[in-house]
């Protein structure tokens, strides 16, 4: 009897692949609505159902092998030995319709415009503080507000050249901004590479579905970087500064450097002399004009910030202040993507642009405010509490899943320094089909499109990084917490 059942399960053909697709109640599913497949997913749905059953496992294997052999991996070091890991990849693409994308694009552009103006303001005249929109304590208590940047003019007044904006959808499908990443957002190489993998494992499927391309990203970024050169030369030296190959995002750094055709440098390759930055080459020193850095502010210049840093370049801040080198993103952006400042972004949009925000914030309580703190502590079982200065899913409390003792410990931590915490009601992220252990199952996901701001305006490549919580029932998509990724399709019609 048991054997029989086992046998039947394993000889299923894929027309039954989508049976037993349990969408959680009160959840927006990207593919299924009222038991029917949404029109944009129909192509993929039909395609998957006609693929012979074993083929999908083979495709999953092929994807893994491609990631491994191309070195799209990060290295985890344990007991002196490096182990190559793949960022888990789900083979079923996530689809964003043309209308959805149009709205997202307008919303992100509006938001970035305001955030850029905010950064310029906060490091110059501080009108927004004087007009009482953002409280002064909040700015000065933010560890990422860098007084060293006060009064520094940056090229074209652009601070955020590269932004990764995290979006989620609630139960009725409304998009919300979850987080702004304005410092050194990563993940864009997965937008590019996931697409390349899909091309290999599902030949012809992309052209049949009118998917917009993403390969132009490095060219746009490169064009923007070149335009920032302080020297008026036709071929300025642009470099990508990486912390080095032990960094988890090293693969991304090499990919971008290769695709843009720029030099990938480490701190030890650069030197400051006479208020200019140079790189050490086989034929002597060569002046550097633009640095796309993937090193955090605090490690950038040991003379000014963390003196222990071996990743930075001594004296580089002073060169930057003089305008002899362009640094991307600008230094000090952390004040604008701080989770406590996040609450004020809708106000910023009204203040600087005189417009209503298109994309909404997730309702957010500041624990620094006594009445909001009271409300949160009373309803903590329904809340997500986060530290304002942490990212990557670290240091957060998922109210519904936490035990009483975890909550008690966390409460103590909150009371020690309430400014460091915000809370949001648990949003039931939207779900989409994933191929897991031979079955198609719904899993929760978010979306991080990448926006590029240059002198010619803001451009958003139609696509992004879709992160997915691969654990059943999980609402946390961060890779450190068992998250994976999907290819993200933005449709042209």
């Amino acid at each position, binding site marked *: 009897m048991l054997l029989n059942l086992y046998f039947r399960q394993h000889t299923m053909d894929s027309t039954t692949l989508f049976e037993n697709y349990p969408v959680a109640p009160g959840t927006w599913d990207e593919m299924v609505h009222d038991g029917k497949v949404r029109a944009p997913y129909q192509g993929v749905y039909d395609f998957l159902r006609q693929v012979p059953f074993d083929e999908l496992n083979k495709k999953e294997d092929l994807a893994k092998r491609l990631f*491994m*052999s*191309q*070195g799209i991996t990060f290295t985890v070091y344990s007991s002196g*030995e490096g182990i*190559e890991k793949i960022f888990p990849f789900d083979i079923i693409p996530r689809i964003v319709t043309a209308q959805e994308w149009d709205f997202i694009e307008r919303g992100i552009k509006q938001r970035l415009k305001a955030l850029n103006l905010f950064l310029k303001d906060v490091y110059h005249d501080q009108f927004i503080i004087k007009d009482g929109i953002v409280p002064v304590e909040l700015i000065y208590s933010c560890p990422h507000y860098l007084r060293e940047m006060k009064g520094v003019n940056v090229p074209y007044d652009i601070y955020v050249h590269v932004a990764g904006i995290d979006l989620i959808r609630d139960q009725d499908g409304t998009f919300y901004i979850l987080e702004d990443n304005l410092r050194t957002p990563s993940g864009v190489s997965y937008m590019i590479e996931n697409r390349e993998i899909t091309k290999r494992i599902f030949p012809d499927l992309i052209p049949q579905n009118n998917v917009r391309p993403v390969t132009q990203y490095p060219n746009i970024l490169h064009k923007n970087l070149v335009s920032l050169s302080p020297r008026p030369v036709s071929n300025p030296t642009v470099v990508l500064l990486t912390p*080095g*190959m032990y960094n988890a995002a*090293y693969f991304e750094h*090499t*990919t971008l*450097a*290769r695709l843009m055709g*720029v*030099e*990938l*440098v*480490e701190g*030890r*390759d650069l030197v400051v002399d006479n208020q200019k930055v140079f*790189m*050490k*080459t*086989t*034929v*002597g020193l060569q002046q550097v004009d633009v640095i796309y850095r993937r090193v955090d502010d605090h490690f950038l210049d040991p003379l000014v910030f963390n003196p222990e840093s071996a990743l930075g370049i001594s004296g580089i801040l002073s060169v930057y202040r003089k305008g002899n080198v362009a640094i991307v993103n600008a230094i000090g952006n952390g004040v604008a993507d701080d989770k406590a400042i996040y609450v004020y972004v809708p106000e910023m949009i009204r203040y600087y642009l005189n417009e209503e925000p298109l994309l909404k914030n997730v309702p957010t309580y500041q624990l620094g405010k006594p009445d909001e703190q009271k409300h949160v502590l009373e309803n903590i079982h329904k809340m997500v509490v986060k530290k304002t200065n942490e990212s990557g899913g670290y240091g957060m409390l998922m109210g519904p899943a936490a035990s009483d003792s975890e909550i008690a410990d966390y409460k103590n931590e909150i009371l020690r320094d309430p400014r460091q915490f915000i809370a949001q009601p648990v949003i039931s992220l939207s779900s989409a089909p994933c191929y897991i252990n031979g079955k198609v199952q719904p899993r929760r996901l978010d979306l991080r499109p990448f926006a590029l701001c240059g002198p010619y305006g803001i451009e958003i490549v139609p696509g992004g990084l879709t992160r997915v919580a691969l654990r059943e029932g999980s609402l946390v998509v961060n890779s450190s917490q068992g998250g994976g990724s999907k290819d993200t399709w933005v449709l042209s019609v």
Partner: protein
Amino acid sequence: MLSRVADSLYWMSRYLERTDGILRMLKINYASSQDDGHDFTWRPVLKIFSFLEDSEIAKLEKNGQAVLQYMVVDKDNPNSVLNMVTKSRENARSVQDHITKELWQCLNEFYHVVRNEKLIRALRTEDPIGVLDGLIRHGLLYCGTAEITMSRGEGMCFMSIGKYLERAIQSADILDVKFSDLSYDLEKTTDTTYWKYFLLSISGYELYLKNYRSGFEARNILDQIIFNINFPRSVQYSVNLVNQYFEQLKSERNLESFEKINFMIGKLRSRIRFSNVQMISEEGLHTYLKKTHEELYAIGHLLNQHYFAYS
């Protein structure tokens, strides 16, 4: 080009050249060990390609399986194929934007192969020659991919200099160890299989048969491995190529450094060019090889000092 990048390309290539040398040496010696059971020893191989003390070599020299494991997959042997390929790949990883994607993938695959647990088992339970051949082929794939896809710029020069410098050093060292067995006596006659396997291990057997009609003589072997410019592993050939690639690096911007190294290479080339087996036997083979070895190392040091210094 960044000094760090030049350094990495140079070592990426050197390590793979060494890997190739080790693998060929292991393969032929393994074959030879199947031929003449009792007398066979792994001593020369271990002396050339490992850092082991004499006493440790004595423990291993009769145990082919242990030598293969040690030289191919041992993590604690800094010169094992596993570690060579790992180092080469780490260097490649840090300069991915300077090598072609194909070259990187080829090295990356090689790395995943030597790290795979299956390899340890295969060496033990399958035909070792087949396993070693498989690894050699990965090295060949690397050479071919570099040849076909890499642009002919500065990067290729540093890769080639690393490769041929390593090869020249290997050839000189191999001769030194092999002839020390004969107390550097060029007149001493020895078993023909001794020379046959030696020539096979450096892919020089066929060329030897075509060139030298009088059977295996120490003098002819020296002639081929030091002077024959048609033999791709000869010292002369390798040094000529080091010279050829180095000259392409000439630039007005660091003429002084260039001249210094160019002088060293030129000196070594002339010394080899204007000597012969007769002169070597008068000077003493060991002295001659030692001098060659030292001058090759000196070139490496100067490159390090003038082209790769960055930290």
